[in-house]
């Protein structure tokens, strides 16, 4: 710690505090994440351990560098290179214009980061815009490996399906798949691609079921023909058959090749999803316009706080600009924006009571073309699935407006602190709403489940 001159506090996360700091000799600006281990009964936690283990091994210009790790008193300090902003800030910043060439450049950097991960047999499992940090010189790097794990070992048991922030969670995980590969990251990358084009989240579901509804409404419901094996996933739910919308109707401005690539990234069947390496070789990246060189990319807005995201809070609650009153966005997303949006608007302005977007949730559920059949997940015999439902209903109290459909996850629980942050953000011009993140309860839950699910099925 003596090597560094501690600067301002940048953010408070689930496991500790992030400080800006300067190396006394090299003058390098770094971000130091202090993980407090004081009373931890289980020693160093999995999130920190994964991050250390994997970042120590990964070295790529497209992945944030872990410069140093050292224990200090009863804390563990992780030293990262410092980056000023992140992709979410950039997407949300209405003042910034992101051209088609810029999108291409960001996607190229994003995919190169993913190629490095997958090449090293690492799944990131939390791809979303605010995990891509952007430097003032325009370079974008992947950060936050707290949910990442290695894959591909034949002895591996099942993985947990409770990863990714809901909006970026692929359909196979929403259906409870516990056996997956790099394609999960590609789905999320596709969602980020769409978000760059739309400037708002493509599938902002407010429950796991609603998430599936939004996905299928755009991409059509899967069938055994289009996605072999999907109906036998542990938490498969029948949706009323809906045809896919042509992507063109959602992305009016995008080029033909961009949509071709996007379609391959968000293929419902994970086995048909394009790999990161193949995506980089897609004609989209060769055709005009050329990707903008990083130094000429728009300067990202500097975050108010929390540069290195720690699990849940902070910048991640910037809502996907729910005020969709502007033209080109109207026809996409929820089929019933007129009904849903005004309520959300009032919700966010009157966000003092800590109420969840109840009206939105019901409106959206009604607007989903294929309302879920009564069949409940977990009622089909799989005890693991049933456990999940029970655990979740415990973790998210009072899901009254969700008809006993046992929605996984449920809306995010709210805390006063978060409300304050949201109000603060509303003040500075962001429409803030409940953006689902893996909050502490989710994470605790995940870990509980992980212990069961990652255990070997029948010995090594």
């Amino acid at each position, binding site marked *: 710690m003596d090597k560094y001159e501690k600067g301002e506090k940048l953010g408070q996360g689930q496991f500790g505090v992030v400080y800006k700091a300067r190396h006394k000799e090299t003058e390098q600006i770094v971000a130091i994440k202090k993980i407090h281990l004081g009373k931890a*009964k289980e020693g160093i936690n999995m999130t920190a351990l994964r991050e250390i*283990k994997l970042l*120590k091994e990964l070295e790529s210009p497209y992945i944030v560098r872990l410069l140093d790790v050292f224990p200090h008193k009863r804390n*563990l300090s992780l030293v990262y290179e410092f980056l000023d902003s992140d992709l979410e800030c950039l997407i949300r910043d209405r003042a910034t214009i992101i051209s088609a060439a810029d999108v291409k450049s960001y996607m190229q950097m994003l995919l190169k980061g993913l190629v490095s991960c997958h090449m*090293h047999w690492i799944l990131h499992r939390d791809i979303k815009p605010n995990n891509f940090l952007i430097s003032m010189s325009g370079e974008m790097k992947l950060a936050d490996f707290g949910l990442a794990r290695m894959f591909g070992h034949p002895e591996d048991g099942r993985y947990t399906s409770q990863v990714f922030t809901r909006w970026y969670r692929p359909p196979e995980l929403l259906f409870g798949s516990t056996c997956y590969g790099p394609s999960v990251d590609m789905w999320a990358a596709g969602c980020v691609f769409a978000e760059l084009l739309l400037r708002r989240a493509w599938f902002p579901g407010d429950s796991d079921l609603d998430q599936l509804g939004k996905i299928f409404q755009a991409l059509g419901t899967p069938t055994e023909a289009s996605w072999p094996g999907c109906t036998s996933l542990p938490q498969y739910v029948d949706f009323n058959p809906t045809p896919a919308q042509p992507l063109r109707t959602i992305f009016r401005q995008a080029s033909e090749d961009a949509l071709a690539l996007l379609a391959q990234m968000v293929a419902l069947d994970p086995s048909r999803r394009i790999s990161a390496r193949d995506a980089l070789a897609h004609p989209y990246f060769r055709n005009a316009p050329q990707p903008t060189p990083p130094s000429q990319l728009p300067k990202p807005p500097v975050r108010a706080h929390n540069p290195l995201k720690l699990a849940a809070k902070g910048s991640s609650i910037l809502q996907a600009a729910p005020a969709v009153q502007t033209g080109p966005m109207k026809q996409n997303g929820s089929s019933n924006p007129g009904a849903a949006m005004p309520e959300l608007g009032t919700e966010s302005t009157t966000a003092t009571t800590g109420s969840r977007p109840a009206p939105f949730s019901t409106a959206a559920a009604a607007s989903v073309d294929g309302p879920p059949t009564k069949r409940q997940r977990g009622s089909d015999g799989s005890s693991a699935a049933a456990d999940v439902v029970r655990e979740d209903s415990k973790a998210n109290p009072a899901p009254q407006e969700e008809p006993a459909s046992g929605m996984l996850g449920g809306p995010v629980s709210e805390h006063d602190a978060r409300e304050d942050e949201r109000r603060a953000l509303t003040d500075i011009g962001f429409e803030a709403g409940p953006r689902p993140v893996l909050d502490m309860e989710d994470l605790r839950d995940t870990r509980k489940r992980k212990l069961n699910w990652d*255990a070997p099925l029948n*010995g090594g």
Partner: protein
Amino acid sequence: MATNFWESDHLNLLVHRERLVEAHQKDRERGLTSAQIEDVKVFTILYLEDIAKNSQNLIRQRVAATACVYFRRFYLKENFCEYDPRLVGPACLFLACKSEESQVQAKALFQMLKKVSTTGKYHGLLLPDSAQLLDLEMAVLESLEFNLIVYSPYRDLAIFLQDAQTSDLAECAWAVLNDSYRTHVCLLHAPYMVAVACMHVASVLLSRSIESWLKSLNCDLDEVLEIARELMICFKQQRACISTEACNRFVEFVMC
């Protein structure tokens, strides 16, 4: 296990034989012989493997193997007189469970330790308490400089067995590999070389020739033979694992 071995720290962490001689300087000064030091290490490694075996599949073989590598790497730098191996062993196992993605809760680990140590040959072995376990976990992390990825030879061995079409060697080679953790080979040689050597040893033990397959490999056969020799010596000596009392005596001898 995963990622790319050739770009990994594991490759950089392989050491030369000389390092083994340099280790445990303080313990030697206090009068322990190399053989006694090795006895204590082998004892602890078998102890860890026994905990894993009795864990009802909570701790897999691979995790125990990683723990052994952590344990051996730790004592390349540290000494018994400063860190009690009877406590460091469980801490390595605790850490390995996490880094191999099958976390075991501290409480569960303590139960296993208790179960193993109240009966049979580990009776009377010193057990860590919760604070010691966590402190030593941190000490191990720091000593390993936070390099946690360990490539295990098990996957390589499975591939080689298939490639050489020698499924009849599988059981023997696997057992040889399990026993290889009683030696230093995991510190000295790349995991795939260890796997080839295990195949070789198994073929010798079962009197089957895999010479043509070995020659078809693009690897240093001298190194393979060297590893194999080391493994064979270990088996020939049949060094009986020392008793818990002997371990206690050795460790307490340097502690005070």
